[in-house]
């Protein structure tokens, strides 16, 4: 549990932020120049705010009122910066070793080989940072922070310079950190899809202030806050591979319903987690026919939450788990949707992107 | 055999090398000679330098050492004497009659007269004194260029940068590119004396031995070979 209260002023910019990060991945979301990096710097101990308190679990990292200000190296927050900040005189391998060297010997840590493989930097180990591409640098920086066995990971737009595929490879690792290793992560991002994908908690920063904070599902269903991100809200369905058809589709079983997704490279019987974006879901009261869409799930509406704008978020329970659908309020009205109503959810198979399929069992039943 | 250290004015470099070798050969003592400007040596002695014998290029600095009480009583002698000469650039410069009647300024034309520092370095001080007593100073003052030591002044004349210069006879002797065109009368300046003395310290026979050797015939010959006149009996 990270508790943060900071205020600091630059000429022309005032930060006044207070939030808690309960664990998992807390995403600091906000526009360019809103103050995200300033918060990260203050957390890392690189900027002493004019006033503030920072507490991580039972350790006070900063309390300007009480004159406490732990130096960066005693905070043990693994920082991944917007600019990679690799050490130019060290090889990639030495850069990776740097953090690990200072990590307490008994700290739980990832194995170097695993991190190297996951980040795809095995062939770069002997190079120096100047011989790396932008994305390669950032991957090394991520590895360096992970290997320092930090108590909390501070990631300032770590994936901004990575391609979608690489992102898709690394995102699950952050998910794993969130779900398995239980290192809390403060993740700065301006990418709505990363937010939707990763966030346990979302803190929205605007002009140096926190304008919204809360559990991801709540914040994501508020279009006023995340104008560009609303399309990305979604739910996770648990499924199991049924078979690989020869026309390039894979059939999966989501709690009794057969769904079709683009072929994935998982053995038959393997469990899957699929994120289905709320805005990719169309609801209908009668089973439709003659539609190009192949995936249909039967479910019951659990909750209808109208946003502040034209939108509403409908949660329904299906055999595969809880599903979110984003509709217009007008549609909610015209279809007369309300808790308890049985509906069909139509999901286009192709909208289940490979990046949204994570191997492993769902937590949700 | 003992070890002794001699602080000697740098202008004695060649002579001291000669004397050192001969003395070591005859006595078996080991002599270390440190050569520098008299002022530096005197100050070092005053600040406790491990010197046993001091040979200064002028009396003032020996006086200074004596005043501080570092000279062993009864050991100071005026060892050498030097002459002040006027030199000219080149091998065939005509001789100059040095006296109150000479027109040094005209001789120089728009050239320079090279000397050592006229208010600081002995050769310069004596030179200025001589020019003053011969009534030449005010006429040539503006043409004088002063070096930090005599050798540099000599070098200026040798290089032709200055047509004339005032240096010690001992310096002028061996420089091939200059001609001695005249010697300043002995009475035109204070005598140019190189005093030597033993310095206070443990009573050591070798110190006396070396002081004696300096006055002896072998040393005299060595000094004279370098153009010095010897004084001590």
């Amino acid at each position, binding site marked *: 549990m990270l508790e943060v209260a900071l205020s600091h002023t630059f000429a022309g910019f005032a930060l006044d932020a207070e939030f808690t990060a309960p664990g998992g991945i807390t995403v600091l979301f906000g526009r360019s120049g809103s103050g995200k990096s300033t918060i990260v710097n203050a957390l890392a101990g690189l900027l002493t705010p004019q006033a503030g308190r920072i507490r991580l679990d039972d350790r006070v990292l900063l309390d300007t009122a009480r004159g406490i200000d732990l130096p960066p190296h*005693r905070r043990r927050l693994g920082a991944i910066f917007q600019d990679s*900040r690799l050490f*130019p005189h060290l090889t990639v391998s030495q850069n990776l070793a740097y953090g690990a060297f200072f990590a307490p010997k008994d700290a739980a840590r990832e194995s170097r080989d695993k991190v190297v493989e996951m980040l795809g930097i095995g062939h770069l180990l002997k*190079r*120096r940072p100047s011989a790396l591409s932008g994305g390669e640098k950032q991957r090394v920086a991520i590895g360096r922070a992970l290997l*320092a066995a930090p108590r909390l990971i501070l990631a300032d737009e770590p994936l901004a310079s990575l391609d979608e595929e690489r992102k898709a490879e690394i995102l699950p690792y952050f998910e794993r950190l969130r779900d398995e290793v239980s290192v809390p992560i403060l993740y700065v991002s301006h990418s709505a899809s990363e937010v939707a994908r990763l966030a346990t908690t979302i803190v929205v920063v605007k002009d140096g202030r926190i304008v919204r904070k809360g559990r991801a599902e709540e914040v994501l269903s508020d279009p006023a806050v995340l104008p560009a991100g609303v399309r990305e809200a979604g739910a996770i369905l648990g499924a199991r591979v049924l078979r690989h058809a020869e026309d390039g589709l894979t059939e999966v079983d989501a709690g009794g319903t057969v769904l079709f997704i683009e072929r994935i490279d998982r053995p038959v019987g393997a469990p899957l987690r699929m994120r289905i974006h709320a805005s990719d879901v169309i609801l209908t009261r009668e089973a439709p026919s003659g539609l190009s869409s192949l995936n249909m799930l039967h479910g019951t509406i659990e909750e209808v939450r109208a946003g502040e704008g034209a939108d509403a978020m409908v949660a329904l329970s299906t055999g595969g788990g809880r599903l979110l659908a984003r509709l217009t309020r007008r549609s909610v009205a015209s279809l007369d949707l309300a808790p308890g109503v049985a509906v069909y959810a139509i999901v286009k198979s192709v909208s289940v992107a490979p990046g949204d399929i994570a191997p492993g069992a769902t937590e949700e039943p | 055999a003992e070890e002794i250290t001699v602080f000697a004015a740098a202008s004695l470099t*060649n002579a001291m090398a000669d004397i050192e070798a001969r003395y070591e050969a005859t006595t078996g003592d080991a002599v270390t000679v*440190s050569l520098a400007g008299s002022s530096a040596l005197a100050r070092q002695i005053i*600040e406790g*330098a491990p010197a046993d014998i001091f040979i200064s290029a002028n009396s003032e600095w020996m006086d200074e050492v004596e005043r501080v009480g570092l000279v062993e009583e009864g050991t100071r002698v005026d060892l050498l004497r030097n002459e002040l000469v006027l030199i000219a650039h080149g091998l065939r410069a005509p001789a100059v009659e040095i006296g109150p009647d000479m027109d040094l300024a005209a001789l120089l034309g728009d050239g320079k007269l090279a000397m050592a520092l006229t208010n600081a370095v002995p050769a310069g001080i004596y030179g200025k004194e001589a020019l003053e007593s011969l009534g030449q100073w005010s006429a040539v003052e503006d043409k004088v260029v002063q070096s930090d030591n005599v050798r540099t002044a000599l070098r200026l004349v040798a290089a032709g940068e200055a047509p004339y210069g005032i240096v010690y006879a001992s310096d002028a002797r061996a420089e091939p590119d200059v001609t001695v065109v005249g010697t300043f009368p002995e009475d035109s300046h204070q005598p140019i004396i190189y005093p030597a003395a033993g310095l206070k310290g443990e009573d050591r026979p070798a110190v006396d031995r070396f002081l004696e050797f300096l006055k002896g015939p072998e040393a005299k010959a060595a000094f004279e070979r370098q153009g010095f006149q010897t004084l001590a009996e």
Partner: protein
Amino acid sequence: MTDWLGPEEWQAVALSLKVSFWATLASLPAGILTAFALARWRFPGRELLNGLVHLPLVLPPVVTGYLLLLTFGRNGALGAPLAELGIVFAFRWTGAALAAAIMGFPLMVRAIRLSIEAIDVKLEQAGATLGASRPFVFLTLTLPLMLPGILAGTILAFAKAMGEFGATITFVSNIPGETRTIPTAIYAFLQVPGGESAAMKLVLVSVAISMLAVLLSEAIGRRIASRIEGV
């Protein structure tokens, strides 16, 4: 070849090397510390320290030598107590090294300081967030990144030490085998008729040694640069 210079001259060459080597090496830690303090710390007396460091440049070497004599001489303010501890500079080669070190100090400090000021503090911050304490950050990041300046400072100080004359002869005299370095030997040659050619031989030896040192430092510098800037 050994005939080309007399034994006394070879002795002066060996001594100059020894003096320059130790002068440079021994002043390096102090040089790095001073440069670091001037570049990074704000403390009372900083400007004074900065001015002090420049003094050996500003003062005529003779004055520096004289001040050294007054301070570190046998009867000097520091010389006397140090002598009690068995540390003697006066009229020893160590004194020649001290004089050379002090004369080269401003050059060394400036070069190192420039390098420190060119380091991106963000890298050091990154090191700190990875758990490295200040001394470790210094050792593992600051120090390697300031190598170009250390190298430049070292070569400047070494060259200066090879050429230092005024302060040395004023402080520790010109004692063969102990304080008679190449420059004082050259001086002695230049004091007597016909000494120029012998002096020139020593000048050549000195130039050759320094050229080698400069070449070596360039080669090392290129390695450092290629490390930092990439293969």
